[in-house]
């Protein structure tokens, strides 16, 4: 209502939303058509970006990597989801924990682990192979297209697992029974009924995995560059080597943005077609399929996949983090705390980066959550006309690859009127924007769980809107928001793809430093930094479990 004093507050928040989301995107688009020197309208940037075979090849590589990684994700994730959801496979808890562990591992740390495992000659797998066969060199080489695809798939298959499992969890046994009573065996039932019902979810996850893969920066930079091939994200990064060619980068990023927007739209349509998904809710009890001896085969498969993604990488990371020299292997005289002490205390750069990482992530989480909550409230209570538009704006960063967002931020905030480049704020705001959708989805859910009548009751008894917010809504939101905070904080601590474009000396975060140090080959130090991130994340996840319940991390970030 117009007489509301709180209206000014709402309008300010909307302005901030436009500043964070719309301005960088608008500037990105503008920059792609802007002549670097004269500022006039031009198509030269597109010509420069796509006029070189090298750049086109990188685009093709990205698509190949994305598609292959999504296929591998499906091969990894779908059988695991089916085994956990529908069968009597043993040790499901262990499998679930390992998937969660995979999810917790930053993908670039996974890449470091795989370099330690499958680096030519020195990698653990190659050394074991040589030791076993007596061959001079092992067959594994992570610095290859295959290596890149495998590593990326290892860290995005959890999406496939979660999407598919959620869908399978909703299919009641009655659907399967209906097929069985008509004479179909277990295999036929699974293939003809169960999996097809989960198909939209699987296709949705396939798209998400594909998009993850093409937007990824850390893993390709660690693996593809030494292997001497480029993908889009590494090419974009090289365009930012001094002097930065923002306009060309903006033009080059456009297809990435368009593909992403289109595919997310497609994914949304797939998931939204409820008629196809068996969303019968409480449709009867669910019984587990008895696999007999095959259940050990399924368990073996699950453990094989999670060994690739979690168990083996974790072992080699731990070994390297605590080793004087990782190559000297597993022996007590090789164990040291020196690396961790060095990262946390001795070296200024790493110490600063550690502090920065958590301070920036916390600041970004607070901003994202505060903004998201306010917007969700405005939309839910229809305080301004056209509130739905705000939802789309708040959710828009979800479909913007981090690297593209970073270029937008760079284009928007390196020049007047608002110069943020060189300050911590550009990183904080970029992180806040990047994870705004997670904050929004969770704020919205938390708000929806509060019946508006609770607020109405406070008002009719004589309390104003702000009093109702303070006395009733805020206390009720506390728990839900703590969970949301963790969900934003975790990805913000490990964010690399946008940080890499926006940091300057003094505003480095751990992910950037880890990447910077990778060409020095000091894997003990890299592993230590990664381990710090993992340990903090695990601690937060455990807090999250207590607050919100066991499934909160995987479900709410992925969907």
């Amino acid at each position, binding site marked *: *209502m117009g007489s*509301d004093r709180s209206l000014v507050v709402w309008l300010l928040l909307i302005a901030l939303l436009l500043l964070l989301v719309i301005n960088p995107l608008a500037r990105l688009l503008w920059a792609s058509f802007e002549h670097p020197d004269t500022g006039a309208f031009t198509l030269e940037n597109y010509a420069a970006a796509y006029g070189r075979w090298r750049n086109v090849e990188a685009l093709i590589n990205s698509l190949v990597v994305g598609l292959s990684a999504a296929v591998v994700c499906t091969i990894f994730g779908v059988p695991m989801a089916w085994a956990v959801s529908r069968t009597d496979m043993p040790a499901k808890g262990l499998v679930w924990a390992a998937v969660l562990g995979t999810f917790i591992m930053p993908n670039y740390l996974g890449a470091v682990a795989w370099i330690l495992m499958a680096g030519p000659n020195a990698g653990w797998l190659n050394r074991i192979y040589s030791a076993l066969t007596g061959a001079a060199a092992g067959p594994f080489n992570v610095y290859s297209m295959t290596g890149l695809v495998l590593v990326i798939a290892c860290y995005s298959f959890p999406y496939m697992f979660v999407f598919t499992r959620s869908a399978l969890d909703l299919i009641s046994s009655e659907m399967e029974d209906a097929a069985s009573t008509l004479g179909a065996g277990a295999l036929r039932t699974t293939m003809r009924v169960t999996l097809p019902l989960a198909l939209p979810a699987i296709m949705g996850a396939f798209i998400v995995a594909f998009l993850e893969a093409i937007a990824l920066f850390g893993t390709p930079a660690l693996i593809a560059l030494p292997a001497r091939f480029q993908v889009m994200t590494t090419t974009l990064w090289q365009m930012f080597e001094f002097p930065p060619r923002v306009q060309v980068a903006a033009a080059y990023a456009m297809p990435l943005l368009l593909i992403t927007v289109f595919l997310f739209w497609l994914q949304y349509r797939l998931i939204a077609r409820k008629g196809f998904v068996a969303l019968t809710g409480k449709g009867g009890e669910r019984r587990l399929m008895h696999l007999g001896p095959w259940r050990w085969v399924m368990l073996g498969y699950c453990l094989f996949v999670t060994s690739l993604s979690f168990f083996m990488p974790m072992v080699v990371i731990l070994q390297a983090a605590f080793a004087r020299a990782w190559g000297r292997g597993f022996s007590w005289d090789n164990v040291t705390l020196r690396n961790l002490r060095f990262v946390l205390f001795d070296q200024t750069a790493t110490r600063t980066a550690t502090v920065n990482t958590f301070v920036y992530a916390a600041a970004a989480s607070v901003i994202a959550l505060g903004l998201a909550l306010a917007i969700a409230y405005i939309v839910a209570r229809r305080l301004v006309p056209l509130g739905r538009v705000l939802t789309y704006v708040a959710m828009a960063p979800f479909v913007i690859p981090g690297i593209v967002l970073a270029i937008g931020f760079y284009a928007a905030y390196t020049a007047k009127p608002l110069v943020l480049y060189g300050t911590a704020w550009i990183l904080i705001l970029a992180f806040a924007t990047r994870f705004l959708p997670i904050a929004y989805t969770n704020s919205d859910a938390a708000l929806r769980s509060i*019946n508006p009548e*609770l607020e109405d*009751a*406070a*008002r*009719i008894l004589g*309390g104003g809107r702000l009093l109702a917010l303070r006395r009733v809504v805020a206390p*009720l939101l506390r728990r839900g928001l703590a969970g949301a905070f963790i969900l934003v904080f975790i990805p913000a601590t490990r964010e690399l793809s946008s940080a890499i474009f926006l940091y300057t000396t003094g505003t480095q975060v751990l992910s950037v430093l880890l990447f910077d140090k990778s060409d020095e080959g000091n894997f003990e130090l890299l592993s230590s930094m990664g381990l710090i991130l993992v340990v903090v994340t695990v601690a937060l996840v455990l807090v999250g479990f207590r607050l919100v319940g066991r499934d909160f991390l995987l479900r709410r970030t992925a969907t």
Partner: protein
Amino acid sequence: MSRLVLTDVSRRFGSVTAVDRFSLSLPAGEFVSLLGPSGCGKTTTLRMIAGFLAPSDGTIAMDGRVISSPASSLPPEKRNMSMIFQSYAIWPNMTVAENVAFGLEVRRRPKAEIRERVGRILEVVQMGHLASRYPQELSGGQQQRVALARAIVVQPAVLLLDEPLSNLDANLREEMRYEIRRLHDEFHITTVYVTHDQAEAMVASDRIAVMNQGRVEQVDAPRALYARPRTRFVAGFIGRTNLLDGESRGEDVAFDGFAIPRRSFPEPAAIQGRVCFSLRPQSIVLHRQAPPAGSHASVVPGQVVQRAYLGEHWDYAVRPSGSGLALRVTTRPHEVFEVDEKVWLELDPGQMAALLPE
């Protein structure tokens, strides 16, 4: 003077008219129910009275002062009303006593007075022993009592109730109807009660406003509403009825298959042309033999076509001879007739309510 006056209040949502020229006037201390099927606009009307919605047209005035109009609407917190919500809206982060004290705290009453009044009202609703409990630890009925206490303790000018009993089980619902009326008799708060349950409205109200498709069909005391419905909708919505289409022809009113002399109706002059009557199933009497002539009632021969035994009464469908109608008749349990049995229907024109033309 009237406490609450709604004058031609309308509310549109986009192209949908949820409430259409609603007018109603409540003297202080009256209990009025808004009764109607879901989507009839009753909750929208209530939320306009509360100030959560502004009317698109018309005005709402309290004690002679306009509080809602399309131009400006006094916010809910300034209206000195209180409301009971469908979900009870008991704040889960506060104890029972804190919930009840809220309105008094907002009104900045002294601490001692708050404690005293909260204690007293909780005794009235029989919740005194649970004052320090949290809502999650209460049953639905107990939450309902807390909601009542919280709304009444501030001594509002108007009390609004939005389907307050719809989440309770049947037994509790019946008990709470009487409880709500008892509290009204004790505190005499001007009350607007929204419900879709006619029994609730009949038990609790001084008057009932029956709403349909955003409009008021009829406002009357419960008995008058039942005995003298004025529209087809009211006749069908309040209790069960037979709708009889008749036409005035000379000295008679002709129905499908039989006729009733015009002069036997209470207001013969009012019956002109086509008229529809409502006749309650229990107002029809069935006889095995033709009853002696001379009473003012009309007797029509017929045949039982269907019957059902419902314990408290029999439900019959009877076709008057030469008619396509099947009249519903309710009789006491010992009045037993067989299907296909020939019977005599005794129709009392005094109990046939002429409905307004559509």
